[in-house]
């Protein structure tokens, strides 16, 4: 027999918390903190009218009651969880993984969207976005005239939204990999297809279940 090297257990540092938190937290604690973060994100989003109208979507504009914003977060979380659960059962070597790990870590993986919600409070973003929406609602395709500070803030927030979405996808992948103990190209492919299916599923649920309830 040869001696084999296996990876050491993760260290508890800032990088692990940001990039691979599920090596440290999963199950019940991840579920509790994840749900709280989803609800906090929904609550804050209701003040700036920021919608997470799809697993990967962020849009600002439509006014809606608080429950609508809370429901969006929960819907996105559950859509991706269900799809990845099926994916995990299909590709995992051992199907004995705990569902609560995937459920909890998927909830916590949505925490970067809290940052998105917080930056939409920036005054420059709010006013530029309002001007942009007015122009779009008038059916025009022109660039709104605004101070440079507003444009810079808008560009910064938009860029941050993209970064946050990429970060979320990375966390969702880590959640799937650790919770279901999957690896390799087969798992990456299932995850990539899964996230697209979940996006479509959440869009349908948003359009045909949530929106009619408004």
């Amino acid at each position, binding site marked *: *027999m040869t001696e084999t090297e296996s990876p050491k257990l993760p260290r508890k540092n800032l990088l692990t918390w940001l990039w691979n938190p599920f090596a440290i937290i999963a199950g019940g604690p*991840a579920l509790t903190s994840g749900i709280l973060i989803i609800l906090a994100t929904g609550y804050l989003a209701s003040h700036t009218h920021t919608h997470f109208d799809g697993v990967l979507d962020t849009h600002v504009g439509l006014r809606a009651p608080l429950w609508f914003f809370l429901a969006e977060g929960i819907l996105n979380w559950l859509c991706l969880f269900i799809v990845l659960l099926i994916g995990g059962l299909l590709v995992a070597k051992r199907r004995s993984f705990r569902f609560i790990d995937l459920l909890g870590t998927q909830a916590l993986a949505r925490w970067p969207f809290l940052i998105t919600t917080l930056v939409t409070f920036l005054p420059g973003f709010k006013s530029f976005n309002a001007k942009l929406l007015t122009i779009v609602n008038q059916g025009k395709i022109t660039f709104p005239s605004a101070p440079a500070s507003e444009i810079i803030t808008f560009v910064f927030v938009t860029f941050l939204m993209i970064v946050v979405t990429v970060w979320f996808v990375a966390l969702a992948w880590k959640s799937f990999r650790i919770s279901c103990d999957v690896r390799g190209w087969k798992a990456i492919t299932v995850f990539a297809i899964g996230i697209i299916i979940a996006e479509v599923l959440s869009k349908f649920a948003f359009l045909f279940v949530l929106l009619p309830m408004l």
Partner: protein
Amino acid sequence: MIKFPTRCPSCNSGLVVRKLSCDHCETEVGGTFPLPRLTGLSPDDQDFILSFVESSGSLKEMATRLGVSYPTVRNRLNEIIDTLKDKTP
């Protein structure tokens, strides 16, 4: 710590034990004894197995003790199980 050899440095075949001796009375026992399967694991993995046994096989307790998540510990155990399976003749 001196690394416990399990493979022949010359031809890379698995090593066996030819001689055992008693440190107390210096009695020596000869024969061909295969190495226990666990010696094929890295020292880290052996420590992990020891820790697992000390936790009465509770992954939850181990996760708490090591300060990591339950699936992290379980996945590490799965890796060790796979390694041992791969090494089964």
